[in-house]
Structure formats: C-alpha cells, structure tokens
C-alpha cells in the first residue's frame, strides 16, 4: 500500500470538503423549509394536497437517492424548458451540477424530515394543546411556545440521522460532475490506480466529519432538552 500517496492525497481531498459541506448544509436547509410546509399540509388534511404529499413522501423515501439525483439531473432542465415555452423567462437556464445536487438532496430530505417532524409532533402529549388553549393562548402562540419546544428534543436525533445520511449521500454526486470528496478521490487515484489508498483517505474524512457532527447533535439535543424541560 502506497503510504506516500495516501499522505499526499489527504490534504487534496480535504480541500474539497467544503463542497461536501455546502451541498449538505444547503440541501438540508431547503429540505427543512419544504418539510415544514409539507408536514403542515399533511396534518391539515387539505383535500387534494394532503394525498399528493403523502405520495410524495412515500415516493422519495422509497427510491434510491442515486435514482433521485438522475431524475432531477435529466428532468429539471426539461421542466424549466417547458416552463419557458409557457411564457416564463425566455433565457436559456443553465443548471450547474451543484444546483441540481442541492435540489435533489432538498427534495429527498424534505420527505424524510416531514416524517421526522410528524413523529416528533405526535410524540407531544395531545393534552398540552388543550391545556394551553384553555388558558387563553391563541393556537398560533400555543404551537410556537408550547408545542414546538417540546417536539424539538425528539426531532433532533432523527434530524441528525437524516443530515448525516445526506452528507454521506453526497458521495454520489461525482456522477453528475461535481468534484467533491469521492470525485476528487477517483481523479487522484486514476493516475496510478491507487484506488484503495484514495478511498481509505476519503473514509477517514467521512468518519471524522460524521463523528464530529453526531457528537454536536447529541450535545445540542441535551442542551435543548434541558432548556425546554427544566
């Protein structure tokens, strides 16, 4: 095993870690916003939309992420093209692989997060809402000050899992041309066929990053639990 290669490639892989992180952060952020809207719709039982989003969640949770990436990759340009046909911006829109990646991850995350929010929401005692309303709080204030603080501690572990899964799934976007960790590893390895060494380097980076984030989330969960319940 070429240790020299490993020590030389490591910093080069590290240099593209920001790309992995940007993809993950932006993906989860947009996914979260979408998920909140989706969950509200699912909970409110709006005639057509609730059923649609139930299917949406079932769909995006039931197919491999690589397939989702390709559907967005091939589908989004066509969708935008057909929109321009109907009077939207006439300019040709070029989509970078980066943007496609974020959109694919956001859609996937929105489905997973919606399930997570739903389960955290239902884990809060239903009598909390009744009691708050009985005291004279408005529904909005109740949700904001009573329900959400209580669902957060239960949401955080699932959120952490979804985020870390997303981060690990970024390893697939080299397929659509983004040079993140795996992409860089493949490039570096292709010269001397040092695939094993490059992949081991990549593994170390993923392990450390995931370990750090999972500890961070665990700390946040403890902190939020303390703040909410004491």
């Amino acid at each position, binding site marked *: 095993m070429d240790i020299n290669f490993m020590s030389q490639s490591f910093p080069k892989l590290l240099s593209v870690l920001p790309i992995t992180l940007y993809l993950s952060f932006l993906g989860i952020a947009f996914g979260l916003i979408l998920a909140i809207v989706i969950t509200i719709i699912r909970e409110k039982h709006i005639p057509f939309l609730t059923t649609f989003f139930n299917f949406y969640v079932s769909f995006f949770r039931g*197919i491999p992420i690589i*397939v989702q990436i390709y559907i967005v990759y091939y589908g989004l340009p066509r969708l935008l093209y057909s929109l321009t046909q109907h009077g939207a911006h006439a300019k040709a829109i070029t989509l970078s692989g980066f943007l496609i990646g974020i959109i694919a991850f956001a859609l996937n995350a929105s489905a997973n997060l919606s399930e997570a929010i739903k389960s955290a929401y239902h884990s809060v005692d239903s009598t909390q809402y009744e009691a708050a309303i009985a005291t004279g709080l408005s529904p909005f204030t109740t949700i904001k000050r009573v329900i959400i603080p209580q669902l957060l501690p239960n949401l955080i572990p699932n959120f952490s899992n979804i985020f870390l899964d997303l981060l690990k799934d970024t390893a697939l976007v080299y397929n659509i041309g983004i040079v993140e960790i795996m992409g860089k590893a493949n490039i570096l390895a292709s010269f001397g066929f040092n695939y*094993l060494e490059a*992949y081991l380097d990549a593994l170390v980076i993923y392990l450390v990053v*995931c370990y750090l984030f999972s500890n961070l989330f665990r700390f946040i969960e403890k902190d939020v639990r303390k703040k909410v319940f004491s």
Partner: protein
Amino acid sequence: MNISAIIQVLVEGLPSTIFILITSFLLSTLIGLFILWLTIQDDKIANRLVHIYTAFSRGTPPLLMLLLSYYELPKLLQLIGINANDWNKYIFAIFGLAFGFGGYMGEIFRSGYQSVDQSQFDAAYSVGMQKKQILREIIFPQMFHLSLPNIENMFLGFLKASSLVYVIGIDDMYRKATILANASQGVFQLQIFIVLAVMYWLITILFSYLFSHLHFGKYRV
C-alpha cells in the same frame, strides 16, 4: 421507446437486486444479533469494540462500503493466504453492505433489548428461571416485537443501497437502467429513470405491506 420495453429491460436486473437485498439483509441481521450478544455479556472491552464498530457504520457512505469491500477485502484475505482475486463480485457486494450496515442493525437490537422492561427480568428470575430461558422465552420475543418498525426501515434501506452495486460492475436493476440510458443516446433518459423509480417504489410498497402483516403474536409490548 415505450414503457413496456423499458420495463422488460429493467426487470432483467430485478433478480439481482432482490438477491443482494435479501442476502445482505440476512447477513447484516446476524451481525446485529452478534453485537446484541456482545452487549449482553456486559464486558467493558466488548462494549468499546461495539461502540467503535457502530461509529464506523454510521460514518461510512454506503458507496464507500462497497468500494472498500471490493478493493480492500482481497488484500486483507491475501494476508491470511487466501486468493480472492477471482471471487464472484456478489460476495464483495453482499459482504460490503452487510458489514457496512451491521452497526445500525446492532444498534436496533441493542435499543430494542434495552427497551424491554427490567421488571420482566425480575419477574422471570423470581419464578426461578435461568438467564438463557429468560432471554429465549420472554426477552427476545418482546425485543423483536419492539424492533420490527426499525428492522423494516433497514430492510428498505438495503433495497435502496443495493442500487450502488453498479460501482463494482454488478448488473442489478439500476445498472440495467444506466446501460439502457447510455445506449439510447441520451434521448429517453428521463423516462428510463422515472420507470426505474416507480419500480423501486412499487417494490418498497410491496415489502411495506408484507411487513405490516408480520407480527409476532397478538400481544402488545
């Protein structure tokens, strides 16, 4: 290219997908049960090892699980004198997924085990039962009952991860789709992947339905 033609090609990869799904899931379950057994021993060193293995499982992208299995395993086996260069690719795929996700499986069984009320143990000891009997008669059945939703989730996770075996050149459903997409010179790619997505989705729904009818007895824990 019409949909039925697409389906016909993709279905050729289905046996592969299902085979990898079932074997890697079963092997991973065995690994998970082994981890549970280690946890029950209550040994400090064993617990440490389990902790490290679980962190490794949680921190490795599935893609890397497969790639490392393919590139790393032969080298490791060489160290103990086994020549794995001509082994079937499926072995690496199955081992990679099973071992890669084993930490998750162990975690599911561990937490299911710890969710069983301690008083179940107390009551069983109090009637004069011994540990092995207690685990077999009382604890493990309840543990499986509690873990079932998470096991189902993992099973579907294996289905989705199986799509990644393309990186070691196995012709599963996903790879059939990419080959088809390249062959059609980029014209029908979207249709092909949407059909592929729907097929995965239907398989997911089928297995979810099967799981919902799987129950270990009429009791509630």
